[in-house]
């Protein structure tokens, strides 16, 4: 049994401009002590996926179908009360824009204590404060600064504070939404190192959501690639980067210039990602795919296991073989 | 090497720290943000010169200084041998037409209340009063075609009706209508999605070739530097720490900061393993930069002299410069 398993999940937003099919039939899973990357461009539904797992969707969003199994139990059938225990207690999250994720007028200590005590009411405030300082140490922050306010911390330190907050109730799974976006290269590298260390030391499972394939290559064990509300490919990190099967994965990896490789002209992906109000029929990638045929326009491919642990949603998965030459 | 088209000499920009009227009266010592603190470099004609560095290192301020958007505290910028800060009136207008800029955020760099035609046409409206409306329209349409947009389709639209990539193309078209010689591009793709990024980078390279442009490319992403740069300078806290041809600097970095930076850049290849240089702390505030070498508090090789004396910039190999006491 997987730690978390998402099965044909659909979450739509019912907005004035129409129905946004943000998550439209997504499958993926995470095992214990595993870092899984969910990669895709902006608007592909990856944040909605995270928010659906956390059941923190805005009122205009609706979960249409699917299952989110955590330890085999469906989170979608839990009551809000039960969810409040699981949220942060079992699954916690680092939100995008950690700059604004902390309350500006409360001390960090106060917020940490609230987070710790929200899930362990037996603890006194003093005990919670001790734990908060430990967590600060664990993420590499000076515990003496815990009484400070959000604005007194730099971007990288705030991200560490957010990670410490996320660990407040000893969760099993940590969802990190763009944990390094907006951080400088060296800080980014430090944060990724910290996440990897936490996985090893605490036996944590981590789901990293990002648009940056280079980040994924650095820390993840397995990767899901999302495009326009769907998962198009899942594989372990080496297979995905060395022998991708979906044309989108191949083109996307190729679209990242590397500091190591000598200069050559990178292949462009024509067009732009579709808007999710009105996605193209058939395979959603077909208007931009160089290999698209009539079949791709007409029929939607399903996610198929082409080799053990390697899933691809492409009609030509068995025919296309990409070799990365880096 | 023939004469560089652009020479930056000891350029400085200190921003006075924003403080109240009273405070200025009370305290004699004024505090400054030393955004750019004495940098010099040359840009050869037709080359792509990259300014790389982390946020707050002064690279964007440098760009704004070169375009004379803000006055410098000290130093000179020579364009074709003429100091641009000494220019006035007509001469300034003429030089400005030859230097244009592309901004980072395509959502903010286009006036939301103007339609695309007027945005691209504005530089012509201001500078080419000799042209008739029809002539200007022809140039605008041509510029939009140059950036691979369909003019008929976009001219009437407002920026919010376009995607990020399309907007950045419009911004490029606007920068090109005056047929500039130099383009300053400030992180032009950092706000764009990966799949669109490459097409914009390629577009910039093609246009550079087509019109024989010189480009100053500002970025925090060393991978982009590798992709399109000819020469590069690495900045840290308002100073250039290392400078030289791109392949030279990226393959054989000598400054400890450059080395650390390069070793920490994530690589989209999980099979490549390498040693990361661990660096303590974060970039200090530019209001009170450390004395001596600005990198010394974080430098693994820092010695006594680094705390005291500022390193001079030295040419350690032909065209490869570094500012570090280790190489003196």
């Amino acid at each position, binding site marked *: 049994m997987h730690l978390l398993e998402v099965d044909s999940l659909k979450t739509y937003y019912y907005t*004035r401009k129409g129905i946004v099919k943000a998550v439209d039939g997504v499958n993926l899973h995470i095992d214990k002590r595993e870092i899984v990357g969910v990669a895709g461009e902006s608007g592909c539904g990856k944040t909605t996926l995270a928010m659906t797992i956390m059941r923190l969707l*805005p009122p205009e969003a609706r979960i249409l179908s699917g299952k989110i199994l955590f330890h085999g139990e469906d989170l979608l059938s839990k009551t809000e009360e039960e969810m409040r225990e699981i949220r942060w207690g079992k699954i916690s999250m680092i939100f995008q824009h950690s700059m604004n994720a902390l309350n500006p007028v409360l001390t960090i200590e106060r917020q940490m204590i609230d987070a710790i005590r929200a899930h362990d009411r037996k603890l006194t405030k003093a005990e919670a404060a001790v734990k908060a300082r430990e967590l600060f140490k664990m993420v590499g922050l000076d515990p003496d600064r815990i009484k400070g306010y959000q604005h007194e911390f730099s971007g990288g330190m705030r991200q560490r504070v957010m990670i410490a907050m996320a660990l407040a109730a000893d969760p099993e799974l940590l969802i990190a939404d763009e944990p390094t976006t907006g951080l400088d290269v060296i800080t980014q590298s430090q944060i990724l190192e910290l996440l990897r260390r936490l996985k090893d030391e605490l036996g944590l499972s981590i789901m990293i959501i990002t648009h940056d394939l280079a980040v994924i290559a650095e820390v993840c064990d397995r990767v899901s690639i999302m495009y326009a509300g769907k998962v198009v490919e899942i594989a372990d990190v080496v297979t995905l980067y060395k022998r991708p099967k979906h044309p989108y994965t191949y083109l996307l990896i190729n679209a990242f210039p590397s500091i190591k490789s000598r200069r050559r002209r990178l292949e462009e992906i024509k067009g732009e990602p579709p808007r999710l109000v009105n996605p193209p029929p058939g395979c959603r990638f077909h208007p931009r795919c160089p290999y698209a045929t009539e079949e791709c326009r007409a029929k939607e491919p399903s996610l198929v296991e082409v080799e053990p642990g390697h899933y691809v949603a492409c009609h030509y998965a068995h025919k296309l073989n990409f070799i990365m030459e880096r | 090497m023939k004469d560089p088209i652009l020479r930056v000499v000891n350029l400085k920009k200190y921003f006075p720290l924003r403080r109240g*009227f009273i405070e200025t009266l009370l305290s004699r010592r004024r505090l400054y943000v030393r955004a750019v603190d004495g940098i010099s470099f040359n840009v050869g004609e037709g080359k792509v010169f990259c300014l790389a560095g982390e946020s707050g290192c002064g690279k964007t301020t440098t760009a*704004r200084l070169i*375009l004379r*958007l803000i006055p410098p505290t000290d130093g000179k910028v020579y364009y074709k041998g003429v100091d641009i800060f000494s220019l006035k009136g007509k001469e300034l*207008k003429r030089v*400005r*037409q030859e*230097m*244009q*800029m592309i*901004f*980072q*955020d395509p959502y*903010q*760099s*286009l*006036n*939301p*209340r103007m*339609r695309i*035609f007027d945005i691209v046409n*504005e*530089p012509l409206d*201001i*500078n080419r009063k000799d042209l008739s*409306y*029809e002539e200007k329209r022809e140039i605008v349409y041509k510029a939009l075609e140059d950036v691979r947009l369909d003019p008929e389709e976009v001219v*009437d639209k407002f920026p919010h009706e376009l995607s990020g990539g399309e907007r950045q193309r419009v*911004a490029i078209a*606007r920068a090109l209508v*005056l047929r500039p010689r130099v383009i300053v591009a400030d992180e032009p793709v950092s706000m764009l999605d990966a799949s669109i990024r490459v097409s914009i980078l390629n577009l910039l390279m093609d246009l550079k070739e087509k019109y024989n442009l010189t480009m100053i490319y500002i970025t925090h992403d060393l991978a982009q530097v590798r992709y399109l740069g000819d020469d590069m300078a690495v900045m840290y806290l308002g100073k250039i720490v290392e400078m030289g041809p791109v392949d030279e600097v990226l393959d054989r970095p000598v400054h400890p900061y450059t080395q650390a930076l390069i070793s920490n850049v994530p690589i989209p290849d999980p099979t490549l393993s390498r040693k990361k240089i661990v660096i303590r702390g974060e970039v200090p505030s530019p209001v009170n930069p450390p004395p001596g070498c600005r990198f010394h508090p974080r430098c693994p090789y820092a010695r006594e002299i680094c705390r005291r004396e500022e390193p001079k910039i030295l040419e350690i190999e032909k065209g490869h410069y570094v500012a570090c006491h280790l190489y003196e």
Partner: protein
Amino acid sequence: MRLVSREKVRERMRIYKRSIREFARTYKENKMGIVGLGILLVFVFMAVAAPLIAPHSPREMWLAEPLSPPSKEFILGTDELGRDIFSLLVYGTQVSLLVGLLSTLLSVGIGGLVGLIAGYYGGVVDSVLMRITDLFLILPGLPLMIVLAAILGPSIWNIIFVIGIVSWPSVARIVRSQVLELRERPFIEASKVANASDLRILFYHIAPNVAPLVFATAVLGIAGAILSEAGLSFLGLGDPSHISWGMMLHYAHEFGALEIGAWWYLVPPGICIMLLVLSFVFIGYALDEILNPRLRRR
């Protein structure tokens, strides 16, 4: 100078039409805005067609017993001079609308200009202009208006002037803060790179972007101006040759309508003031919701 080509004019018209259509579409979805606009239109009609609607002239006295209660002929009764209250009410609309619109035009004109200049040029200019603005904000508004109105004498133009001159500082502050934000936007720098002059940037780039906010503020300003006019008139500082709703209440209060319970004299003018103000407040609120990007986020 060469005339603008005809095609360019046609293009402009097409764009404006499209923008207006788009705006109308969003506005229609705002219930509050529709209600406000509805009420306002009724009052505008009342003001324009006053001679047709009012059964009597507002100046005609001794039509009936003073302070007589509503009857068939005088549906809202008469005032202390035996004038028809309903007719006074209808004509009063003209005064309220006129004062509201013109004094707001004045305050938005002054405030807008001060805000634009202070925000754009910054530095000493900004400091000086903003200190002046602060001073005006510190002085109590209505008492200042009372003093000015009392000294200038009772005339509708003086009232307009007084309200306009006292209420510009808040407009200046709003415009300035908006300009400060806009000034830092890259599209301003982009046009500086293209050699745009300060004047061009100020009026071609910044002003149009401030305009929607100013518009919403102005609509709320009209509401405030109508209330101020009512207040001044109620205190007896109004123009006796243009009877306004505030002045009717002044007379009602003076001549003891309260003590005899003449509700027909006390209630209707107040309702009119309230409804007219409310219509502008509703419209202003709706505009704010549509035009203010901060609120539109969700």
